[in-house]
């Protein structure tokens, strides 16, 4: 089994505030790993490190076996920048809580732009690939619409298409449904589930416990900047070993009490 992603002893602090205190885990190719935990536990920061949107972390992140943002030289680890960094970073795709589509471009241009600018594809090939990915997430009919005219669910699906078109090795989802109206959540979760079934390697930070239960191969519960518990969803949700996992899950269940999810 090849490792798509390996994270070793990851630490990150902002001055005195230690956000990540030594996080170690692997994601195998084709595996779906969900990360759950209370806000402030470091889940999103973890994802931002793997995307190299935070660069001052300690420890090591490997994507497809290659060190991210660092290089070993003479036994020492030194930072890399520019094209060498982007080569590894390009193997990671990310979907954000707030979509982060570019509002001055149509949905189609949003997907085409990285293809033409970064991959230097010609416009026709980029357009074809972009349309293919928009169709895959079910928004091909919105190709010419500008993001502000799309619903949250449509925007997030365009954002997924934009990330997929770059053919990443690993897809990161940072609370991809948290800013959606409740009735739009399922259309995005459906796309994510479809990706998982197609064998996409996924690292998913989520508050959707049902999704984690049904789709994840493994679940990590984070608390206070460390992995507090890790296991298959059946074990972690139904027989949590740690008291703080139980406390967190009971809070979530309480939240969901009135919700038909």
């Amino acid at each position, binding site marked *: 089994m090849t490792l798509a992603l390996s994270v070793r002893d990851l630490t990150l602090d902002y001055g005195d505030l230690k956000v990540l205190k030594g996080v170690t885990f692997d994601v195998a190719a084709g595996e779906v790993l969900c990360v759950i935990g209370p806000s402030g536990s470091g889940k999103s920061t973890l994802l931002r490190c793997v995307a190299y949107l935070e660069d001052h972390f300690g420890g090591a992140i490997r994507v497809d076996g290659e060190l991210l943002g660092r290089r070993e030289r003479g036994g020492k680890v030194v930072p890399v920048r520019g094209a060498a960094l982007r080569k590894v970073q390009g193997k990671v795709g990310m979907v954000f809580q707030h979509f*982060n589509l*570019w509002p*001055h471009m149509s949905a189609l241009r949003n997907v085409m732009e990285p293809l033409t600018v*970064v*991959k230097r594809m010609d416009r026709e090939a980029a357009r074809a690939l972009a349309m293919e990915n928009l169709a895959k997430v079910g928004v091909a009919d919105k190709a010419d619409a500008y993001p502000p005219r799309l619903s949250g669910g449509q925007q997030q699906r365009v*954002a997924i298409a934009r990330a997929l078109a*770059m053919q990443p090795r690993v897809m990161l989802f940072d609370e991809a449904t948290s800013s959606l109206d409740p009735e739009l959540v399922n259309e995005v979760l459906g796309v994510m589930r479809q990706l998982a079934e197609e064998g996409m390697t996924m690292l998913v930070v989520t508050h959707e416990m049902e999704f984690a239960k049904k789709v994840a191969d493994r679940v990590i519960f984070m608390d206070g900047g460390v992995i507090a518990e890790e296991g298959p969803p059946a074990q972690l949700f139904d027989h949590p070993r740690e008291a703080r996992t139980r406390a967190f899950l009971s809070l979530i269940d309480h939240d969901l009490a009135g919700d038909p999810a």
Partner: protein
Amino acid sequence: MSYNWNFGIIWDYRFVYVYGAQTTVALSIVGAVFAILIGLFVALARQSAPKPVALLASAYVEFLRNTPLLVQIFWIFYCLPVLTGASFTAFWAAAISLSIHFSAYFAEIIRAGIASIDRGQTDAARILGFSYAQTMARIILPQAFRRILPPLVNMIADIVKLSSLASVIGVYELMHSINNAIMNTFRPLELYSALAVVYFIIIYPVAFVARRVELRLAKR
């Protein structure tokens, strides 16, 4: 008061207005183009360059904003040639002065525009593999431009107005040309009134076009 108006004098001096206006417009265009380019460069330096360069850029902005344009014009026309041996025509001395003076204001406007764009826009570009320059050119600046268009246009109007200061070093733009005409004719009321109208005719269309562009961008 029985002043004897003679509006015919304006017609007699129509070519002075036209030539003056040409120089005023040329001075303003050169000034605005270079001011915006330098301003963009300084804004990016303040935001993303290593600390010493960023501090230098801040000092540049503060110094230029806190000294009078008139002094800068005199200094560049009279002092800079003495210090460096390079001398400029009055036109270019004025154009350079306007460029650097207004570049400080443009730098501030552009910096604020860039800062107003959500952090997530840059995050998305970076994770998709855009370099810094590509992110700026394709994602951030096009969005920032829409937001800073109104203050940008105000500044361009200010450049046209303050280009009249070039008259003090003898550039034959509108102000200087009409001052000369008045010395010959002793007709300040007619000629200055018409001068104000000519400035208005130059500046108003700039604001008008900007307003239309803004509305068109907002429609999308």
